């Protein structure tokens, strides 16, 4: 079953990046009111809102490119687990604050060079979305990097938890840089970016922070892929079950 191909490659490409941001926004939303300090609840809500905004723009544009009557909400609330094409990293559960911040940091370090590249996209709508998103991503990266260093270089417990978070999430990072035929086509058309080209800047950012945080680069060489083709971890289905429930329970209504 080919679950992810829409009629138009551009729409598929936009949905991938839209899904990354939507799923991460939803994960962060789960955490609001659980942060260690009120300031951090505020920051997490703010970051979640940024991701949600980017997701909304990308999915709305994807829907208009598809042109078959679906809107952004239909894409967000009426696709199944097998049709979501987000990276596995962003769907990982909120195990503790270290996991939340390391997940954020690993993703921010990817999104900054991603949006920098896409800001130069031949597709001007995508370029416009990316130009706005890159400013937000830089702020997110400052925030998450700051926490990674604080926690890594904090107490024995925070160091242990943060190292554990890196070790647990590391196998999901390789997927960010594995391209497929669609990525190749989009890059060739000057619309998208070759994901492999994002790995070097990502590694620089990540290794520098790991060093500042007195942590070690994880030794895990596993690369877990599948998100872009709808082959997820078991965590996603539960998230969508919650997120989509109202639209599924009362189909076709205005809210």
């Amino acid at each position, binding site marked *: 079953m080919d679950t992810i191909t829409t009629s138009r490659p551009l729409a598929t490409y936009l949905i991938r990046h839209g899904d990354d941001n939507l799923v991460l926004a939803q994960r962060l939303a789960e955490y*609001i009111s659980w942060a260690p300090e009120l300031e951090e609840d505020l920051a997490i809500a703010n970051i979640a809102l940024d991701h949600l905004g980017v997701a909304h723009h990308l999915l709305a544009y994807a829907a208009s490119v598809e042109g078959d009557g679906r809107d952004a909400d239909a894409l967000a609330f009426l696709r199944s687990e097998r049709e979501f094409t987000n990276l596995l990293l962003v769907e990982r559960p909120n195990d503790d604050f270290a996991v939340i911040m390391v997940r954020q940091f690993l993703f921010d370090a990817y999104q900054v060079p991603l949006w920098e590249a896409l800001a130069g996209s031949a597709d001007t709508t995508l370029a416009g979305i990316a130009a706005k998103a890159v400013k937000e991503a830089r702020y997110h990266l400052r925030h998450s990097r700051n926490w990674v260093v604080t926690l890594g270089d904090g*107490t024995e417990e925070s160091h242990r938890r943060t190292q554990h978070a890196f070790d647990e999430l590391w196998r999901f990072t390789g997927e960010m840089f594995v391209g497929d035929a669609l990525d190749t086509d989009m890059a060739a058309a000057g619309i998208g970016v070759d994901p492999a080209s994002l790995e070097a800047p990502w590694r620089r950012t990540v290794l520098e922070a790991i060093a500042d945080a007195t942590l070690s680069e994880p030794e895990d060489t596993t690369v877990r892929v599948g998100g872009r083709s709808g082959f997820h971890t078991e965590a996603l289905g539960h998230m969508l079950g919650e997120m989509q429930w109202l639209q599924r329970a009362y189909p076709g209504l205005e809210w």
Partner: protein
Amino acid sequence: MDGEERFREIIAADEKVEPGDWMPEGYRQTLIRQIAQHAHSEVIGMQPEGNWITRAPTLKRKAILMAKVQDEAGHGLYLYSAAETLGVSRDELVRLLHEGRQKYSSIFNYPTLTWADIGAIGWLVDGAAITNQVALTRTSYGPYSRAMVRICKEESFHQRQGYEIMMVLARGSEEQRAMAQDALDRFWWPSLMMFGPHDSESTHSDQSMEWKIKPVSNDDLRQQFVDATVPQAEYLGLTIPDPDLRWNAERGHYDFGEIDWDEFWRVVKGHGPMNRERMAHKIEAWERGAWVREAAVAHAAKRTAARSA
């Protein structure tokens, strides 16, 4: 002129008392209690609304609700800062809340069971809060008054979006209309309770009015709220669950039924539907965050040591 005389002058002239000014100890304690309760309410209020962020029905509704909960965290911070100008730390106030020695608004001890409850909270609960807070912009303590001015602007946006949710539901399917009516049925009386006991029963009211901490009485504010809200409910085509509610042309106000004061006191005393859950959530979040706060302190100390080495 001594401090006490100056304080009386400020109050008489409707000017603002500022943090450096002399003030009676009772004035200071009343303000701390009231501002802290207000700050705690903003923070605890994040829970019933946060309960629906992950299930909000559209991307737009999710974004609006998330922004609203974020505003509440911001209001909490802003109010804790106002309380700190009175010489008490935020940590101390949070500790008092966790120990059950300070309160938050009882309205948040009711559960949000359906999406319509998010609409009802915006429309009724924020509506009642604004009624109270607009009055408080004239409170005699400068930092509190300025906090209220700022908070009112955001609250009126919250109230509008809540009413808009209700409007969409009221004009929606039969199930949606029932959902909206049910939310109004459950939140109407608790919203009226937000204004507190009758003026004749309120232990703090007289002194607070004399000091102009509280410029308008509980019963007057409640009447204002009812007068403003009844036509809004009529416009929605929803029924306010009060058989005694009717326009009184002579008074120029709506008459309305008596609040169930037993319920009011039961919830205030900790026996509402969600009192235990709200506090348990708050305390658990705080305890789960302990290692993070300790790490931040340890890291900052290492930084300082490294700089001075």
